């Protein structure tokens, strides 16, 4: 089995395989595209609801291409938060990509510089997961395969912002449709997704309590940075350094 894998890697550059590899990637991208569709549409609708034009909603999806950070951006914009803090929050939510980037670097180090730059631009959570899975299975991670995964996700993500934005203009009673609760529910889902991580409960409790106190006393938008800092501090305090060392 192992020998076969090495043989397959040696025919990496065969151009006849490029088409197959693209569609192999495409097949991996398709379910991700479907799962992210409601969020892409929701983003477009909420962006318009929070004062964006349809063009700005599409631009944000095309340029940032990171669902959670885009949601954070429009949520904070609706709260009249200073611009620099919105930008910083987008950065903070996307900061996890630093880790993906460091980890995926060894998988795609054979890409040409421009291919590499484009690949990092397209490095979302599911793209990272699929690339790691592909590399672990022993199949070659080629640029054309990587593009195959990213293409359906990216194209639909941008299109959904446009469709959602057009639809958002039609929503007359956001309260009755529970629009104000959809983002908190969405973010709760993301928080729950990290529950297997070390000391998750302690981090979430610290962030929750401190952000609520900060929200009621100092007020929005500072509850975001203060609450987040409390959670991170909690993580550093309760972490067992020996355990972390063993893993790294």
């Amino acid at each position, binding site marked *: 089995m192992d020998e076969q894998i090495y043989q397959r890697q040696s025919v990496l550059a065969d151009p006849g395989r490029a088409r197959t590899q693209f569609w192999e990637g495409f097949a991996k991208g398709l379910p991700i595209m479907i*799962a992210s569709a409601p969020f892409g549409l929701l983003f477009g609708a909420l962006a318009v609801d929070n004062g*964006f034009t349809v063009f*700005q909603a599409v631009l*944000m999806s095309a*340029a*940032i*291409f990171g669902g959670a950070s885009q949601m954070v*951006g429009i*949520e904070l*914009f609706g709260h009249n938060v200073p*611009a620099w803090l919105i930008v910083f929050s*987008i*950065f*903070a*939510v*996307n900061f996890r*990509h*630093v880790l*993906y*980037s*460091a980890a995926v*670097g060894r998988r795609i180090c054979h890409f040409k510089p421009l291919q590499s730059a484009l690949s*990092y*631009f397209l*490095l979302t959570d599911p793209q990272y997961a699929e690339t790691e899975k592909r590399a672990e299975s022993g199949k070659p991670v080629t640029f054309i395969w990587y593009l195959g995964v990213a293409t359906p996700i990216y194209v639909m993500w941008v299109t959904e912002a446009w469709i959602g934005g057009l639809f958002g203009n039609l929503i007359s009673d956001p309260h*009755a*449709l*529970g629009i104000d*609760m*959809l*983002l*908190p*529910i969405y973010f*709760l*889902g*993301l*928080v*729950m*997704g990290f529950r297997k991580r070390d000391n998750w409960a302690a*981090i*979430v409790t*610290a*962030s*929750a309590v401190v*952000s*609520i106190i900060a929200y*009621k006393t100092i007020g*929005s938008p500072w*509850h975001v940075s*203060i*609450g*987040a800092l409390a*959670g*991170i501090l*909690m*993580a*550093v305090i309760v*972490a067992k350094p020996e355990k*972390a060392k063993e893993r*790294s």
Partner: protein
Amino acid sequence: MSSITWIIIAGAVLTFLTRIGGHLVLSRFERIHPRVEVALNAVPAAVLTTLVAPAAAEADWRGLIALAFAGLVALRFNALTMFLAGGAVIILLRQFS
């Protein structure tokens, strides 16, 4: 250009830096300090919680039920199912009660 457009451009540049920067910066180090790694790992949950908790504190009982139900669904099902379930609960409660 409006402030929204500037926010989008600056956010996009910084996002790209996080996506390429980890490779450029972290690959130069042999390893990350364990405490830094612990802090980095805590970032997503810590940031995202601050977007849920105050909204929950301000929410009406319908919102709280929707959040609690969605949280329970998340224990067993994926994020999309959880989102649709929570969304369905809030819409139904706001329509009929």
